[in-house]
């Protein structure tokens, strides 16, 4: 029997916090604002989309203490066990404003000020990690922060100006690193069970402990990054008890790259996976940072994106096109499934009671494979796909030797376009073939219309994305995507 700890322990700024009465539905934001009266962190949307509640979370990883901005509104309190939570109140010291704050003031980057603390925290995280951020890095850092007043230009200017101020090496999160890490390590890694008003939260000690707990409590809610489950709590007010938190399990955070491909533990976040993804699947370099916003990518997991079975998740179509497999586990038993077979129907996956998703394996593409992944949404960043299309093609000379096409947003599940694939197979890779094959989409998918896109637009997009893939894999002598268009020279009039 594993040792059980009955409280959650974490650091909040400079204070050590131990809490016994914690329920699985309690959010970090409510704790910060209501219990601690740290009101600098704001609630703007309670769904992880506006960033007004951004805080930094530091946690122990194999590479040491790692700090990331997250959304406190959907971050469940139990999951900050053994973490260091840093709020905006900690930034300004006795000697005045933090460099990021100074720059924000100097650039007139706040108007109503409500989004500002969250923006300061995102820029603080950027300032700590990137010495001289470029435009793209700044925009990525701000993907999860909405501002309705400024139009962002002064905020971007402040991000740039802040690098010239202060020295991250002297920041308290850097100088205090060892002491903070030692403190977090001292909060032992036993299984944690906490309860409030009969609602229970479990943090298994390790993977084996989780496998047993899961099998014993098949009704339990599994919480990894809480970017979806958090909304069940804040928006639907669902009671998720009993809940098993897995985001801290190092075994589920393993990333293994080898000749065969990439294996991601189910609790690997989008951010943690990013470097390997870029290395092994360069066609996803533009796609990956368009999943959620920065805060969401720091919390959300690839495993969760699959396990929740959403028809509009960003990663399933991409992974299906790459031929990914999932490893499902029940106690010590493991099943390996083609990812496309995991999705049975809307809201239904091939998963038995007590099963959990342990890992995802993505085969290394053959060197001559042509790959692409496209996401279409109303807004470029931090939006949910209207349609997501992924393509993997191998040519034998000019002839299609093999092709896999998968779409999200086109059916009740992420799904392959088998009719289109068949229409392309063995044909010459020409615009005529593509145009003819595109008509097969109508047989593969009957998309619905909703607030993200009409059925007609979705159907048209699917055809046009195939065309785009064709153009991109053929030399047509002009840019095919907006991102390939030259950006106008920044110098304007002053």
């Amino acid at each position, binding site marked *: 029997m594993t040792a059980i700890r009955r409280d959650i322990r974490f650091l909040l700024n400079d204070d050590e916090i131990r809490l016994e009465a914690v329920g699985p539905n309690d959010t970090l934001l*409510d704790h910060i604002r209501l219990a601690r*009266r740290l*009101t600098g962190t*704001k609630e*703007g949307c*309670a769904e992880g*989309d*506006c960033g007004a509640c951004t805080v930094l979370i530091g946690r122990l990883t194999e590479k040491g203490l790692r700090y990331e901005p997250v959304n406190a509104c959907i971050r469940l309190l139990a999951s900050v066990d053994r973490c260091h939570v840093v*709020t*905006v109140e900690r930034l300004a010291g006795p000697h005045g404003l933090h460099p990021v*704050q100074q720059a*924000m*003031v100097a650039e*007139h980057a*706040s*108007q*109503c*000020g*409500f989004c*500002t*603390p969250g923006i300061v925290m995102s820029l603080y995280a950027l300032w700590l990690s990137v010495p001289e951020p470029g435009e793209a890095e*700044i*925009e990525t850092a*701000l*993907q999860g922060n*909405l*501002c*309705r*007043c*400024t*139009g962002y*230009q*002064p*905020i*971007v200017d402040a991000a740039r100006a802040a690098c010239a101020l202060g020295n991250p090496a002297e920041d308290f999160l850097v100088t205090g690193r060892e002491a903070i890490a030692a403190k977090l390590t001292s909060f032992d890694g036993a299984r944690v069970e906490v309860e409030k008003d009969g609602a229970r939260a479990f943090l298994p000690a390790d993977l084996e402990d989780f496998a047993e707990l899961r099998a014993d409590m098949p009704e339990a809610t599994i919480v990894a990054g809480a970017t979806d489950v958090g909304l069940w709590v804040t*928006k639907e*007010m669902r009671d998720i008890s009993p809940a098993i938190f897995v985001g801290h399990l190092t075994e589920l955070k393993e990333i293994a790259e080898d000749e065969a491909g990439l294996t991601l533990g189910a609790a690997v976040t989008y951010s943690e996976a990013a470097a390997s993804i870029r290395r092994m699947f360069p066609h996803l370099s533009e796609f990956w940072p368009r999943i959620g916003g920065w805060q969401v990518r720091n919390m959300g997991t690839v495993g969760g994106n699959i396990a929740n079975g959403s028809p509009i998740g960003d990663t399933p179509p991409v992974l299906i096109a790459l031929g990914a497999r999932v490893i499902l586990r029940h106690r010590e038993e493991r099943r390996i499934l083609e990812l496309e077979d995991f999705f049975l129907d809307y809201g239904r996956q091939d998963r038995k009671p007590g099963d959990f998703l342990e890992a995802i394996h993505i085969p290394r593409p053959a060197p001559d494979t042509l790959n692409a992944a496209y996401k*279409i949404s*109303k*807004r*470029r*960043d931090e939006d949910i796909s209207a349609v997501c299309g992924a393509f993997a093609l191998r040519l034998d000379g000019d002839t299609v030797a093999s092709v896999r096409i998968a779409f999200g947003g086109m059916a009740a599940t992420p799904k392959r376009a088998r009719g289109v694939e068949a229409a392309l197979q063995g044909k010459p890779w020409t615009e005529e073939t593509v145009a003819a094959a595109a008509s097969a989409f109508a047989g593969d998918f009957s998309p619905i219309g*909703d*607030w993200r896109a*009409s059925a*007609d*637009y979705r159907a048209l997009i699917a055809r*046009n994305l195939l*065309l*785009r893939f064709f153009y991109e894999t053929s030399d047509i002598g*002009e*840019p095919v995507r*907006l991102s390939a*268009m030259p*950006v*106008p020279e*920044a110098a*304007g*009039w*002053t």
Partner: protein
Amino acid sequence: MDLKIRGSVHTPEKHDSAEKHVTGRADYADDIAAPEGTLHAALGLSGVARGRIKSLDLSEVEAFPGVVGVLTARDIPGVNDVSSTGRHDDPVFAEEEIAFHGQPVFAVIAETRDAARRAAKKARIDVEELPHVIDVAEAIEAGYPNVTEPLTLQRGDVGPALEAAPHRLAGTLRVGGQDHFYLESHIALAIPGEDDEVTVVSSTQHPSEVQHMVAHVLGVPSNAVTVAVRRMGGGFGGKETQSSLFAAVAAVAAKRYGRAVKLRPDRDEDMIATGKRHDFLIDYEVGFGDDGRVLAMSGDFAARCGFSADLSGPVTDRALFHADNAYYYPTVRLVSRPLKTDTVSNTAFRGFGGPQGVIAAERIMEEIAYALGKDPLEVRKANFYGTGERDVTPYHQTVTDSILERIVGELEEDADYAARREAVLVHNASHRIVKKGIALTPVKFGISFTATWFNQAGALVHVYNDGSIHLNHGGTEMGQGLFVKVAQVVADCFQVDLDKVKITGTTTAKVPNTSATAASSGTDLNAMAAKAAAEEIKERLVAFAVEAFDVPPEQVAFEPNTVRVGNTRFPFPEFIKKAYLGRVHLSAAGFYKTPDIHWDRAAGKGRPFYYFAYGAAVSEVSVDTLTGEYRVDRVDILHDVGRSLNPAIDRGQVEGAFVQGMGWLTTEELWWDEKGRLRTHAPSTYKIPLASDRPRVFNVRLADWSENREPTIRRSKAVGEPPFMLAISVLEALSMAVASTADYCVCPRLDAPATPERVLMAIERLKGEGQKE
């Protein structure tokens, strides 16, 4: 001695709360330490769009752990109404009729916000559903009534003029609404007092109206109610009338239970239950000559007003006031149709109907340009208001202060418009997938509330006997920098450093009967009132000096942080101490009303606007014709704020308004399902611009040579709303990229918001029309 004070007028002073914003120490209503025992309210919203309540079973709500009680229409001590126009059509809680999906039906009061929200879900509301109408076109077809009286503006006889015109065309423009998406949702904290008294902390742009509405709902006189707001986390018009409901519910609960009550709706509830920018369906017919000049213009402006009047009257009026934008219509007839729909009642939003008028004018310029094969800018210039001729608006006000020719001329040159347009045409001729577009659009915006009586303001200035100054006025701070601008004016009056002037929160107990901080008028009105108060105190101080030191008045001067009396210079605090000891009244209430404006709505004639603010923008975009996705490549703006009181604050207003306008015209889409439910009611589904959506190159300049011709506060001009409409240049640039796919032969008639979907579908439509030819 310093030669100048710190933080005077015309300097780029930082926002007074900037340091508090960045440290998280700025208190918003939800951050204030609540009184002990504060209860929390949650609203129970209707789940149907229209119907009759057959029964309302709240037993499970009341039984929910932590619940203290529930409130329905029957529990309202005064009048169940928060109608801002006195029409009695805006109930706090629905009684028998459900008027829209998301209408508040009851409130639950509990020990915690969480308990209140959970309990609210336990209600059983049995409703007999009735057919509903969501869309403007459907409302017209169904013969729905107007929620308020329509307006007609006309000059000349438009029918014969259209007949006689060499060219004539007609079209329809659909313009979507917009959610305010202030980052701070609505909130009210009501604290009960003695007898009939109650104090409400409300996130509102209109404390006096909230005060009067709370009194009305409680059935007490206004003197029993105090409403206070230090700052809002954004307003944009969404907190002009919409705050009353939340304040009223909190106040009723606070009086009933004798405990403080806070009501903070969740973001989704805020978006579902409060009004937005009006969607418009605009039918236009225009006659014009070979030179592109308009000869006759007829426009029908139908608006989705929702179930009640709210501010739909003045909003739709303003749409007509701006349907000319910068252009002279020799013969014109404009008609508003403020239509009832079974949706939330739409309300004020930055521009207040103006943007929907301006966008129609710009569509007409675009139509004429495509019809004649001209550069739309050429058509625009041909139609600009003249000086001394061609200068009368459809509401019979003469335009006397136009500086558009200079603004557009400078912008055209600085932004290199002609060469860039040529480059766009060349690009489009040689590329088939990513197309480009460029457009230059101007704006002329009328400043003043069209309800003339709102153009008044009060202020209260105290000078304490240590020389420190306390400033208060009726304007509210929502991020626009009003407080610092007014403080700069007061500092300048007394010639003291800005930090000697204490900025204080707005409260109805200090300055009564104030107007909403709206219509871009906050600074124009309140700074003048504050100046009047300061000048009055100064007059008393001069009189004191004259008497005490036996000098003529012209030898008393307020110099930087000093008062000079004859040849003696006193530090300001020392002089004030002497004045106090000399029993000088060191407090004054100031008042201001805008002169020279009048408006006869029935006749459609008058001078509703004190002056106009001008600006222009050039936008260049790239469009992916396979998907409809786009990127705003470059924007250049030249905007007129008169002589800026604070160029940093004003520039921030211009940039922010532009990007907000861009959101309205591009990614922000309100989408209702067939059941009448708004499905884009949170940031996950309703997409306002992000940092990465802002123009790749964004050049913004204030026309620093401009001065208001009217004697406004330091010759400045209003800035909040006018630049919002500069974003129409983005829509037209997108339209040009679409038009390029059909060789610019057809005006694409791109409706707003031009989501990637709408852009791609317009391209498809043009392809289809091309094939027909």
